[in-house]
């Protein structure tokens, strides 16, 4: 693992047993999160992005299990080999995770301040007053009244406030890797904007390595330095955000971007992608996972899974496009 990469995922596979055979939520995923940068992960529901995020904490829920690969985190090693209290201490202290449903990520029966103290106690923090002090500073940074928030119960906080408190919990132990799973879903537009602003602020202030997961391309396009596109458990395209948005190579990415209506321009220019997201247990056994919905699909696409093609630090996995770009470069 190089010095510029904080998290290195190599050939990760996660599967769940179903009555019709194992469903591969994540298959052969390799992804590097560069230190100090925000990486965005885009995909439809069921694409496996949340499962991928959970595996960074070795927290794939039963009955699912990791079937292959490693997740190397700077300063920790391979998370997937950790167990017991070593794993527990890594969570929260080395890696901060902000929930998809931050609406209910706190114990409804205890005030926020007490739960922060519980967090400190669990991680062997000696100076808990210092912990609370840091927490108060973080809360103020988020634009909230520290005393009031720390004394409140979860139901006394609004959705946006809860999301921000979730971020506080993820960072108060000075983790250097931050994962945010759908941080803006379930929020109104104004709260979305302010949460994203806050994320950017704390990211740059603390020099974090951040992974943001969202189904909303707009959110990723807004603050991510690099972006990866996931489909049916595989990463189909990945690269610097401006590059991916300006010239998407993979047919799925193209379809995704075309399907978004823009504020400027003709609304009817947005085209729907036909078909439905794959049922994980009915993914084609051979060939490219996107083939059934792909307009460019050929025979080769249904036989073998495409390899990654690299163009500078922008990669994608598609036979047809690879052939065309090869033609362009040789032409």
């Amino acid at each position: 693992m190089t010095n510029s990469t904080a998290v290195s995922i190599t050939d990760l596979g996660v599967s769940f047993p179903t009555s019709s055979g194992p469903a591969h939520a994540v298959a052969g995923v390799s992804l590097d999160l560069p230190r100090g940068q925000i990486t965005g992960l885009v995909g439809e529901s069921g694409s496996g992005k949340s499962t991928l995020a959970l595996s960074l904490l070795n927290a794939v829920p039963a009955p699912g299990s990791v079937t292959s690969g490693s997740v190397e985190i700077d300063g920790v090693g391979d998370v997937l080999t950790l167990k017991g209290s070593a794993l527990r201490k890594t969570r929260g202290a080395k890696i901060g995770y902000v929930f998809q449903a931050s609406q209910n990520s706190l114990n409804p029966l205890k005030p926020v301040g007490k739960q922060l103290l519980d967090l400190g106690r669990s991680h062997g923090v000696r100076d808990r007053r210092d912990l609370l002090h840091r927490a108060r500073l973080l809360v103020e940074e988020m634009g909230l009244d520290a005393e009031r928030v720390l004394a409140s119960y979860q139901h006394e906080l609004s959705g946006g406030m809860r999301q921000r408190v979730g971020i506080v919990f993820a960072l108060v132990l000075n983790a250097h890797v931050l994962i945010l799973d759908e941080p803006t879903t379930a929020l109104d537009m104004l709260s979305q904007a302010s949460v994203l602003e806050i994320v950017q602020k704390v990211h740059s202030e603390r020099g974090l390595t951040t992974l943001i997961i969202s189904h909303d391309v707009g959110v990723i396009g807004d603050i991510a330095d690099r972006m990866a596109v996931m489909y049916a458990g595989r990463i189909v395209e990945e690269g610097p955000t401006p590059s991916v948005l300006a010239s998407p190579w993979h047919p799925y990415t193209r379809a995704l971007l075309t399907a978004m209506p823009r504020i400027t321009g003709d609304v009817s220019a947005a085209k729907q992608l036909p078909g439905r997201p794959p049922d994980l247990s009915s993914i084609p056994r051979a060939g490219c996972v996107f083939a059934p919905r792909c307009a460019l699909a050929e025979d080769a696409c249904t036989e073998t899974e495409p390899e990654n093609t690299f163009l500078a630090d922008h990669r994608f996995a598609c036979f047809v496009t690879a052939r065309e770009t090869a033609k362009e470069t040789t032409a």
Partner: protein
Amino acid sequence: MIITKLVTGLVMIWVVASATFFLVLAMPGNPAAAKEADLINKGMSPQNAAKAVAAIYGFIPKKPLIDQYGNYVWQLLHFNLGQSIAEQGTPVSSIVASAFPWTVILALSGILISFLIGASVGILAAVKRNTRTGDTLTLGGAFINGIPTFVIAILLFYLFTTIWAIFPQGGNVSIVYTPGWNAGYIGSVISHAVLPVIAYVLAIVGGWVLTAKASVVSVLGDDFILAAELRGLKPTTVLRYITRNAMLPLFTILALALAFLFGGSVFIEDVFNYPGLGQLMINSINTKDYPVLDGAFLLITVAVIVANILADLAYPLIDPRIRR
């Protein structure tokens, strides 16, 4: 809020009391009027007969209905429940008052013990669900839950007083001991109470196990538990979070359990010959001592309603989401 609940409770008590009043009137043969006629036949003057019947039932028959009803309610407010027919002249209130504590001892012990055992087993069954231990515990809980109270009472009595004569054969205390805070008396009370309390416990522990398990399973699926684990909280802390949240719904069932126990007291006290309200009800049915029956029924109902109110009032104390 509190006022509403209190008022609702009082209204319910009033409805039940009125219902028992009308019930007595509806009884075949109108025992009150019959009694009055009987007394007159025996030579009593009509006014004295009327007064005598009024003392027993709480109202004077043959007067206009409103009068009768008013009379009845007036007596009730003075805690006068009439007089027993079987034991001539004894006020119902004293009969009922002496039986009440015995039922309460058993019922409260039963609820407490069954809750502790049932909740712990339920939590264990939930944590170990989908394993053999968890499944066995769940099955066991469902099994016990399905057995009717009187079956439990009969079997317990049979096994532990007849086949293995470990415990005394019924009654609440041995008469050799003088009542009071002395070791002999208390020891005897306890030894006579063991089997009935076990019967109570077995009657509802199954329900606690299943409810506790379901509640814990539901809390285990809650987001904040996963969040706690992903934040690296200690397993004991997470368990505390789970337990406190899961026990909340159980609290609301506490009052319901008490109602069930009072209902079951009829069987258990009958089988074990225990002089509580339940046995009082059965005996008064057999001796057709209606004032006592109504008095006992009223007391049981009031106790249940009061327990409900108390539980409702106490709930906001433990659930901050309900506090205002």
